[in-house]
């Protein structure tokens, strides 16, 4: 009769729990991939392909052609590297989502975070590479097409707002409502700045000069400064979250 009172647990969960490899090696691997790949992204976007800080939206056709001609080699090297390493952005998503699943708020936002960033990676990161690679692939293209690719690459790179705004909002809400204190509440507020930043980048589609253009003081520089600050905070707090996670903690799986 005592058997009846014990509810049957799904066997797969039992097996995985019983034999679960101790330690946090997988999380540490994902964690250390983040600074490595951010360094690589920095190298690619800042030093090699010159997408950051972005060149002016106010160039003449000749200047655009000169830009692509002058940076063709580094664009090729940098964006080919990006084609190989871009996938590791998904490791960061997986790691953040793993910790969001430890929160008391259920899995809905963890999955939302993965989905928003999996979508955002395409217009917000990879497409700039496609546009620039296509441009330097045939330097003899019609100059108007070159300008089209220039605009396409930079507007997509800087102007992909919604995917990231959604991701930041989801993340901030999850932290604010979480009772397990996986991340401190101030990270949620810092994340809200990021939502505001995305909103302030909206006029990049309108202006070719000034602080709200895609290379402007507000749309680009301030936004990037806040992003870097956020990223450093996230990295530090993720490190702490992994370290503080009790070994063998049972995580909900719904």
């Amino acid at each position, binding site marked *: 009769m005592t*058997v*009846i009172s014990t*509810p*049957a647990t*799904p*066997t*797969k969960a039992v*097996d*995985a729990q*019983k*034999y*679960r*490899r*101790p*330690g*946090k*090696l*997988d*999380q540490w*691997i*994902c964690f250390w991939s983040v600074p490595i790949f951010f360094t690589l992204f920095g190298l690619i976007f800042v030093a090699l392909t010159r997408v950051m800080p972005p060149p002016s939206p106010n160039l003449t056709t000749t200047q655009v052609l000169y830009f692509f001609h002058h940076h063709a080699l580094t664009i*090729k090297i940098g*964006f*080919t*590297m*990006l*084609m*190989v*390493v*871009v*996938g*590791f952005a*998904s*490791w960061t*998503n*997986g*790691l953040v*989502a*793993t910790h969001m*699943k430890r929160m008391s708020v259920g899995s809905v936002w*963890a999955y939302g975070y*993965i*989905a928003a*960033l*999996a*979508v955002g*990676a*395409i217009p917000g990161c*990879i497409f700039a590479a*496609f546009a620039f*690679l*296509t441009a330097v*692939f*045939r330097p003899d*293209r*019609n100059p108007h*097409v070159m300008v089209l*690719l220039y605009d396409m690459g930079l507007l997509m790179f800087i102007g992909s707002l919604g995917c990231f705004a959604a991701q930041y909002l989801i993340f901030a809400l999850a932290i604010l409502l979480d009772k397990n204190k996986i991340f401190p509440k101030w990270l949620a507020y810092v994340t809200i700045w990021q939502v505001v930043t995305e909103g302030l980048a909206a006029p990049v589609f309108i202006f070719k000069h000034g602080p709200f253009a895609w290379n402007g003081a507000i749309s680009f520089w301030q936004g990037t400064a806040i992003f870097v600050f956020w990223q450093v905070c996230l990295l530090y707090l993720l490190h702490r979250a992994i370290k503080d996670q009790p070994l063998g903690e049972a*995580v909900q*799986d719904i």
Partner: protein
Amino acid sequence: MSVQAEVDQPLIGQHNNDITAQTVSLWITPVSGLIFLAAFLIFPGFRPPMSPSMPADQVAAFFRDHTTSIRLSMIIFDICGVMLVPFFMLIVVQMKRMATPSHVFAYSYLSGVATGATLFAIADLFWLIAAFRPERSPNLVVLLNDMAWIVFTAPVGMLIAQNICLALAIYMDARPMPIFPKWVGHFNLVCAAVMTPAACAAVFRTGPLAWNGFVSFWLKISMFSLFVIVMFFMLRIAIKRQAFEEKGVA
């Protein structure tokens, strides 16, 4: 006894459903594989793969002469291109069954699949746009054709990150009878290594690394097909074993 049966019943039902869903997802794979093969053979741009050094006039003429077959094959890819997603999700589910310290690799894998599948969906749209008005200026046809080929061939990063993820998860699986044997992990690393050079397809216009070259086209596509075939059989074993284990305990 009857009470216990009542307690267990819904859970057993749930498991059977899970196994059914996984089995169906598994068998979607060969079906979509056949459709892919058909579309691959219909697309004139793959037989042989179009050369990147084709002049603009020839590219425009190519789209004009083969409009119907390009449209047909690319519409098939457009409709069925993302049908491999259930197959990749099977891998995610089996990764979550592994006795790894956490599920972080499973979620990373899922994230990579979502991005990768979208990229494939975009590539065939570019070919369809090019074929929509073949009378367009050759400059623009070449542009669309270039973008299609680059998006189709170069972004191998998602597959690389996924394969490394899966390999690491397999190595860390502490089950006495692991979900996938260790050699599948090695195999995944080999896959990642073989596909990596295709990233250069956006740079080279001739030679094995160009998008019609041996490495970027034939080797990459063969490796990907081999990956799907190997994982198909491995998943089949894993699902069967899961069904057996769960039945055995129930």
